[in-house]
């Protein structure tokens, strides 16, 4: 079933859905996907083909890996949390047990882990919390303390509040409408969390606006934010150049880098947030190879 893929850290496999259940506004899928669990690290993602043999939707859909388990009754499994929003996610969330789906995983760079046992803050927006519980487990194994902040528009759009209580040392919940936890945004509660924990590092996954404010608040408290971004991706494997964003390298030089292979996790302070505006992102003038005035 699984395609042996040249010891390259990624497999392509015809997965079998073994469980699919609602979780608030989302669907939680468990897929038998041999080979993925052994390779995956928190923060990486999976790219799924959608629509079946007659489909007109050719592009893969990407999802953060929620968790993996190397063995089990059915072989290694992969868990994803999917919000139905368009043709592809509607097809995926309508799958039934024993249906098959083509999976390429794991993809992208995982969250970098601290070398020492430090306090950490994990921030998830909506389904963005999906990869954080597994990350929390790994961090706690390394002796880090984990404080989690989960935010969403409304209660049904929160994911994993119960699991958070198990995985983290402390959990704060916010919703825009106050239907659960504190009314407001995660950025409202974050300053207090950083103050309290003195965490030198925050991990975040969620909408771009949230990632930007986590980065800002972290910086204000001397912390580094590691953020998992979500940019439109056509291939997910690094060959199409659609998923780029302006990121400053270690050398201080900005380039349009592929978020599927050099991300999806970036240091928040390296992302050129000012280039993003209402769903569109421009090329900063100082980026490598940026169009010259009057040029291309």
């Amino acid at each position, binding site marked *: 079933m699984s395609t042996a893929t*040249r010891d390259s850290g990624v497999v392509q496999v015809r997965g079998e859905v073994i469980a699919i259940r609602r979780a608030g506004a989302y669907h939680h899928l468990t897929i038998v996907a041999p080979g993925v669990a052994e390779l995956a690290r928190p923060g990486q993602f999976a790219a799924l083909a959608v629509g079946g043999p007659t489909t*007109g939707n050719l*592009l*893969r859909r990407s999802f953060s890996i929620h968790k993996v388990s190397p063995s089990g009754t059915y072989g290694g499994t992969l868990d994803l949390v999917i919000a139905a929003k368009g043709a592809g996610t509607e097809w995926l969330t309508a799958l039934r047990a024993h249906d098959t789906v083509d999976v390429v995983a794991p993809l992208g760079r995982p969250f970098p882990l601290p070398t020492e046992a430090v306090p950490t803050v994990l921030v998830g927006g909506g389904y963005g919390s999906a990869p954080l519980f597994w990350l929390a487990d790994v961090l706690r194994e390394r002796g880090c303390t984990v404080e989690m902040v989960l935010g969403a528009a409304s209660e049904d759009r929160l994911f994993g509040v119960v699991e958070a209580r198990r995985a983290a040392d402390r959990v704060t919940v916010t919703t825009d409408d106050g239907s659960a936890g504190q009314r407001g945004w995660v950025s409202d509660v974050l300053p207090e969390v950083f103050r309290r924990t003195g965490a030198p590092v925050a991990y975040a996954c969620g909408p771009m606006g949230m990632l930007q404010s986590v980065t800002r608040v972290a910086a204000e408290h001397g912390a580094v934010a590691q953020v998992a971004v979500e940019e439109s991706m*056509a291939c997910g494997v690094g*060959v199409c150049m659609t998923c780029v964003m302006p990121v400053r390298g270690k050398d201080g030089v900005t*380039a349009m880098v592929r978020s599927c292979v050099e991300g999806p996790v970036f240091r928040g302070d390296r992302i050129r947030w000012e280039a993003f505006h209402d769903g569109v*992102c421009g090329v900063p003038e100082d980026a490598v190879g*940026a*169009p010259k005035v009057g040029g291309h």
Partner: protein
Amino acid sequence: MAVDLSVTLSGRTLPNPVMTASGCAANGRELHRFFDVSTLGAFVTKTVMMDPRSGRGTPRMAETSSGMLNSIGLQGPGIHAFVAKDLPWLKSVGARVLVSIAGNTAGEFADVAKVLVDSDAFDCVVGVEVNISCPNVANRGLVFACDPLASGKVIALVREQLPRDVPMFAKLTPDVTDIVSIADAAVKSGATGLTMINTLLGMVIDTDRLRPQLGGITGGLSGPSIRPVAVRALWQVTAAMREGRFLTVPLIGVGGVRTGRDALELIAAGATAVQVGTATFNDPTAPQRVLTELEALAESHGVARISELVAVAHDRMVIP
């Protein structure tokens, strides 16, 4: 009985007719995680220009019915970085490389070709694909390949830079009234072959925000949705060559190939080799899978050599 899959393109013999398509396979490392890129007939690199280019802002893509739009804006490292890093890597894994080049001006195309020819790893290059489907800065951004004169000029200048025995393919756009006249101009100016087709100019509007979905407003349409246009273009140019309107040169077919059957369709229309583009985004092993499927299909047609199927449909018309 095994089919002989080898094909000869302007003097270079390739083990099989399947290639990647420029811009749909980066420069090899990423796909090499999924299959050995040296097993393909040739690996076609992302179009490279003189200088590094950032490409356009985002969004750069929109999914369309059986296809997609892209507006990458020819992002790339520039030819110097390409010959320093990408080409040697491709050579190291044993790939045969068809290098796609472009320029903002006809002169820039030639300069890029010169750097390529002078590079250390040039011996893994089995040809140069001249992507004339890009905007001509000197002519209000009109795409070179929309104009026979501009196309001819680029081809002639690049030809001067390439050793005689290096195949040179002109890559044509379908967005023209008469693709045969562009093909004619390219061949007369020294192209030893033609690659058809590049993307169609298209556009998607985001109906929630009521604005163009791509940062670059328009983009290139690719994928199975455009295959009938590719087949037609290959057919027309092949028919023109068979009528003796200009020198017969090999064609490389590209546009919407997802399966071996699709590849055979392009071959039967006139292509000697076939590139797999957008389908790679659906399935990273697509080029290799297409090759396997094509081989089985050729076998089922009972031919000894795949080359027997090139343009075969021109001889099989039923006129009732």
